[in-house]
């Protein structure tokens, strides 16, 4: 059942020594690779997983934060603010689903009420001035299904929800189009530095580069230790989440945030861009960096909390439960450091804000690398963001588009009924620039099998399409002759 590691995507004949190697194909690593790809550099991204964005990136609350509540003056605050502005713009151009639902911070106790002015003040210090107080009546007017007992709140009109799956895929796709090599399924086992280059040992051979970026997420401290670092330790924090069926979506207009207090951070209830309702996360410090299990206690606690915030949620069906790990450290801020002598950048401790801040982080890191001596000569012919398949609920999906169905009837053949995913979309995903390695990857690209039936109706058919696309006889789409030529890359010659 374990799929074979996917072949490298990108230039067929990479340079023996790349200019720069990025470890980590999460939302931060792919954003950095994309930013670097604007320059005349040969770039390789390696990751242990067989797909982009499979760590912290894929399992989070899927909120595009304004950064209103970050610690003022921190690097995180600065990069969040910058990153969220950049990502709002990028998402619109790349077709990444974003819905500006706004958020309401809801206070249920006197203690929480007393914390509100401080939060408002913090937002202003962070340069976010659109925040405004709301009375209890104002809260119930905005959210009629809110549970009884809300006392007061704050409105943050620019908080949005985003697709956390399309985002790193768009970055990776743009990077590959610009000549970046993506080598997945390659866990890093060591780094040897000397003679002006880093040799990154992976389970699938060494990858050599003159500069190295550590964007390894939950493995950030391990990679940093290989580079002689050791200023921080990743302390994975597990967050369990519950996804409710789309029939629950009308219960909610905006993101409902808890007011953090000394005792508890609380859980949020948020819409998703797929039209579901999300409840979570728990926050549990754990030792095992791969333990994304949900727990009976975690799920029960979430349901209990959810019943208080939006009581009608109790009657709705749960579509999915999952857990994600946040790359927290003992420090309160990001751990970003560039070592000019070592030709090394450490981009770690991105905690839970990497999705929102990703483009800000990438811009900052590449600027720092340039300052440290990485030659940044802009290259010509930058294509800009790719147009990604739209999998949000707010816009027009292929099944709703008569023109598209007329041009290609496969967009009228719905396979996944809960999410209304067509054969055409699955076919496209299987043949895309960064194709899925397994059905999980296909879910993240199309939403197929993500609905209330979780595959009762469609999993067999979708798996059959996947198996046909991956059958060795036909070759993987990524391997098929002409795949590299699908996106002609002027860098090919230069890289060789």
């Amino acid at each position, binding site marked *: *059942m*374990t799929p074979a590691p996917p072949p490298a995507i990108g230039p067929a004949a990479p340079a023996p020594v790349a200019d720069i190697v990025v470890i980590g194909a999460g939302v931060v690593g792919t954003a950095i690779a994309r930013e670097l790809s604007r320059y005349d550099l040969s770039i390789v991204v390696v990751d242990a997983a067989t797909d982009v964005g499979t760590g912290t990136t894929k399992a989070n609350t899927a909120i595009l934060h304004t950064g209103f509540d970050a610690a003022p003056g921190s690097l995180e605050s600065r990069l969040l603010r910058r990153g969220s502005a950049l990502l709002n713009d990028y998402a619109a151009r790349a077709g990444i689903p974003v819905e500006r639902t706004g958020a309401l911070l809801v206070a249920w106790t006197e203690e929480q009420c007393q914390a509100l002015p401080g939060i408002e003040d913090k937002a202003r210090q962070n340069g976010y001035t659109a925040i405004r107080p709301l009375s209890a009546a104002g809260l119930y007017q905005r959210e009629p*299904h809110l549970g009884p007992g809300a006392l007061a709140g704050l409105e943050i009109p620019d908080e949005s929800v985003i697709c956390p799956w399309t985002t790193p895929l768009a970055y990776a796709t743009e990077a590959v189009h610009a000549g970046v090599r993506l080598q997945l399924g390659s866990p890093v086992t060591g780094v040897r530095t000397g003679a002006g280059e880093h040799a990154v040992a992976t389970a699938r051979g060494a990858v050599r580069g003159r500069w190295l970026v550590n964007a390894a997420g939950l493995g950030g401290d391990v990679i940093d230790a290989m580079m002689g670092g050791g200023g921080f330790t990743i302390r994975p924090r597990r967050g369990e989440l519950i*996804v409710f069926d*789309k*029939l*629950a*979506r*009308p*219960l909610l207009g905006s993101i409902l945030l808890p007011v953090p207090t000394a005792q508890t951070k609380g859980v949020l209830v948020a819409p998703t861009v797929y039209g579901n309702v999300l409840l979570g996360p728990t926050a549990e410090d754990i030792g095992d960096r*791969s333990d*994304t*299990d*949900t*727990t*009976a206690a*975690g*799920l029960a606690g979430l*349901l209990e909390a959810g019943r208080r915030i939006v009581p*009608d949620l109790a*009657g*709705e*069906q*749960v*579509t*999915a*439960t*999952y857990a994600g790990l946040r790359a927290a450290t003992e420090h309160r801020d990001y751990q970003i450091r560039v070592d000019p002598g070592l030709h090394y950048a450490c981009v770690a401790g991105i905690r839970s804000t990497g999705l929102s801040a990703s483009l800000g982080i990438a811009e900052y890191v590449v600027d720092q690398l340039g300052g440290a001596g990485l030659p940044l000569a802009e290259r010509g012919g930058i294509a800009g963001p790719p147009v990604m398949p739209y999998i949000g609920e707010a816009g027009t999906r292929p*099944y*709703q588009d*008569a023109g598209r*169905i*007329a041009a290609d*009837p*496969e967009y*009228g*053949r*719905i396979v996944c*009924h809960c999410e*209304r995913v067509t054969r055409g979309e699955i076919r496209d995903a299987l043949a895309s620039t960064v194709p899925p390695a*397994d*059905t999980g990857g296909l879910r993240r690209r199309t939403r197929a099998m993500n609905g*209330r*039936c*979780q*595959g*009762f*109706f469609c*999993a*067999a*058919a979708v*798996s*059959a399409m996947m198996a046909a696309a991956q059958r060795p006889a036909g070759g993987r789409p990524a391997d098929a002759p002409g795949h590299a030529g699908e996106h002609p890359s002027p860098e090919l010659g230069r890289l060789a």
Partner: protein
Amino acid sequence: MNVDVLIAGAGPAGLAAGIELRRLGVSRVLIVDREAEAGGIPRHSAHTGYGLRDLHRVMTGPGYARHYVQAAVRAGAEVRAGTTVTGWPVRPGLPGPAGHIGPSDPALHAGLPDPAPHADLPDLAGPDGPPGPARPLSVSLTSASGIETVTAAAVLLATGCQERPRAARLVPGSRPPGVMTTGELQQRVYLYGQRLPGRALIVGAEHVSFSAMVTLAHAGADVVALVTDQPRQQSYAAFALAAAVRWRAPVWTCTAVHRIAGHDRLEGVELANLRTGATSFVGCDTLVFTADWIPDHELARLAGAEIDPGTRGPAVDTALETSLPLVFAAGNLVHAAETADIAAAGGRHVARQIAAALRGRRPPRVTWIPVTVATPLSWISPNAIRPGGPRPARGRFLLRSDAFRRLAWLEVRQGGRVLATARARLVPGRPVHLDAGWIDRADPAAGRVQVALR
């Protein structure tokens, strides 16, 4: 396109209804199904035992499905597979979660009948409507040939049901491949010829669970056991005996799955004995969640039909009409899950009611008397009566129980009055029947009827 009756769902209920409607002289009957092939769940239920009660012969599921599809076409109904109802008129503003969903395109609402004021009403005043044909419903259909608008004088929802997957059952642990429902299992094995070597564990011990066992054995799996949180299996003794003897698959009672383990692939499950609290780990490569049915009620909810809290399908009266005038519902959407022949019987019954309604021959929709159940009974279907309304399909109500009772007395009460008593044997997941003779004795002014154990 204009039709007399649009039927959503070409399973046994929808097809049987289409055939009967044509037999009764209703001219334009369109049956749509979102699956690539019509026939419904029996298409991928390859075991035998179908057709005994309605066609008076024994057939396999696919044979039964083919029979009904061909009969519907022969009867003159139009059957369109690969066609999804995507533009059902969504009604905003109704109280409750069902009413608020979806795009508020006024064009979508134009075709809907007048709102049924069901929400805040006491038992007496039910969803009202005109006795004869109302304004036609307008529905969008999506298929490979495009998006088409169909107007229908009446709509029958026959969208069936599905098993709740592990997420909905809140089973914690990891999320590896190899965990599925019976529906997915049957399609993998019978439609796509997939082999499932290795050990398999089945969650549930109802009829469908034993059907999953046969399917797994057919696919080359070694079935370790069937586990149920109930004190006994809930199927026929003969099935359990056959399982134990022929496939050496025991039923582990009072046992629940506490955790799923394995990341890239399923490694096994942690089981808990609900009596002793003891846990044990059982290795397996396939885990099948069976039964725990939920009706596919999306269309009903989007239209704002009242949902019965017991069946979780649309609330229906004995004519199988929902709270929305001229929107009917039949099959496992209103009784999840019964066997195919029972669904088909409901289809024939509702067809007669639709035909009468289209001809203006039905009692006025004046009073809606809810019929409810008390624990350990979990639901009753249909779940409302109207004065002058017909007897339900096969002259009886269907009920479910959450508990075993070798001998129970069901009591039908309205206020302080006992309308009927009946003997029943209760087994969770198995049908309990209640003769409907009492409905004529119900007082239209006395409100809710409740069925409880005496």
